[in-house]
């Protein structure tokens, strides 16, 4: 089996700050990969670069073996609305707040050419149920939803076209603990049912342990450690990873 997404030699500087320094990363189909590290370590930048939203100064990103920037912006956008999904930390960035829940879920379908109102609505209802939102609320605006529901709606909107790879930027950030746990549970079930590959950026080590098969630890724009989740968290090699793991608060 070959890698779904493979990036090599990524470098990007913001002025004198090196956000990415020769980063290589790969993800295989059906795999959940967590990118952890402190604020400013370059993990969100890495996600933006991997998902084509920002060009690296050096380096290549291949999806299914093809360079994602080789075919131009139109091809990249097609990728972003079909095979890829992006879940923002703040649901307001990923949702259209002035459009109903059903419209939000339907937008990706319609972008991909769905032109049957009844079908779009049926799929929207189905997805609302899958993310544990009452389908009767299909015509409500997202602002009537709680933060956790908005985040679940954003996930439904992203997954409705059955992407193969989903980028998630701190999806549980800003939610309270019980809501976080529920969201993580749901994500884990969806990833398994749909065979999703997920690259999830988080600073929450516990969330990473729950979801991820593999972990990449970043610091100052470099990958300092990489390995299976249990190995990295139970037997950290790099001093920074050791610090990170020992800083986790136990309840």
């Amino acid at each position, binding site marked *: 089996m070959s890698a779904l997404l493979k990036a090599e030699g990524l470098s990007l500087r913001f002025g004198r700050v090196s956000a990415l320094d020769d980063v290589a990363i790969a993800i295989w189909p059906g795999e959940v990969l967590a990118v952890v590290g402190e604020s400013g370590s370059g993990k969100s930048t890495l996600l933006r670069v991997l998902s084509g939203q920002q060009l690296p100064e050096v380096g290549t990103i291949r999806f299914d073996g093809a360079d994602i920037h080789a075919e131009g*912006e*139109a091809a990249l*956008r097609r990728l972003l609305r079909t095979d890829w999904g992006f879940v923002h930390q703040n649901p307001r960035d990923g949702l259209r707040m002035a459009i109903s829940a059903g*419209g939000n879920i339907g937008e*990706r379908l319609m972008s991909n050419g769905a*032109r049957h*109102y009844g079908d779009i609505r049926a799929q929207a209802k189905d997805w609302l149920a899958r993310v544990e939102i009452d389908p009767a609320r299909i015509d409500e605006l997202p602002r009537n939803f709680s933060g956790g529901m908005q985040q679940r709606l954003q996930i439904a909107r992203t997954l409705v076209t059955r992407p193969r790879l989903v980028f998630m930027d701190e999806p549980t950030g800003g939610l309270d603990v019980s809501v976080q746990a529920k969201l993580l549970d749901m994500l884990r079930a969806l990833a398994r049912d749909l065979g999703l590959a997920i690259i999830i950026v988080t600073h929450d080590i516990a969330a990473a342990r729950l979801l991820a098969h593999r972990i990449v630890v970043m610091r100052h724009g470099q990958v300092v450690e990489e390995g299976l989740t249990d190995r990295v968290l139970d037997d950290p090699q790099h001093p920074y990873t050791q610090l990170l793991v020992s800083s986790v608060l136990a309840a």
Partner: protein
Amino acid sequence: MEAGYNFAYLDEATKRMIRRAILKAVAIPGHQIPFGAREMPLPYGWGTGGIQVTASIIGPEDTLKVIDQGADDTTNAISIRRFFARVADVATTERTAEATIIQTRHRIPEAPLREDQILVYQVPMPEPLFRLEPRIAETKRMHALADYGLMHTKLYEDIARLGRIGTAYNYPVMVNDRYLMSPSPIPAFDNPKMDRMPALQLFGAGREKRIYAVPPYTPVRSLDFEDHPFRAIRAPHACTLCGSAASYLDEVVTNDQGGRVYVCSDTDFCRAEQEKAA
């Protein structure tokens, strides 16, 4: 002709610039072409875009008709017609069949147009996506990539809230299966007339400084859903004056007792129907 003005008011260099924009617009049906709109002797919103397009294409042999909401006798129509009579000394008419150029605000004449006629629309807002996406740079990118899912989301919202597509005017169309275009605020009733029309259709937006066009016989399709097809909406009445049951009607309130009548919005069509009946 009024002394001291160039033929048709605009200077020749400006007309040439506008003609270049028109040619480009005709070459790419439905695509908005920027142009250097001039100050005109009437306010924005009164047809500064349409009047510049008309000034650039009109010649001494042309016969001009100007309508506002279908009517030849409204302030906007009369003042633009008189303007060209003064600065270009062209013949003017109220009869659709006699005109070679028809400048219109918010209607397409009921009578079918011919190959030797040009229809010039006055457009307040050329961007069909502007209420949905506030960033002009982003709308340009969406046009470039033909990424129009957002427009359908708006139609979806209409059906979810109202049970039908609620847009009765300025109903978005796809031109030549490529560009999403605003038909200017004509009633949706008129949309089917744009499809494969034998006449050239030019659109001028003065304030927004855009020109676009639909060449003759170009397919123009109103957006819809398979299970909620586009419908041309018309008041279910007959015209009080001419009795037409097919034309687009204006509702006119006649008193404060709830009295109202329906009359054709196209005054030339209504007159012709009345003459036929008489």
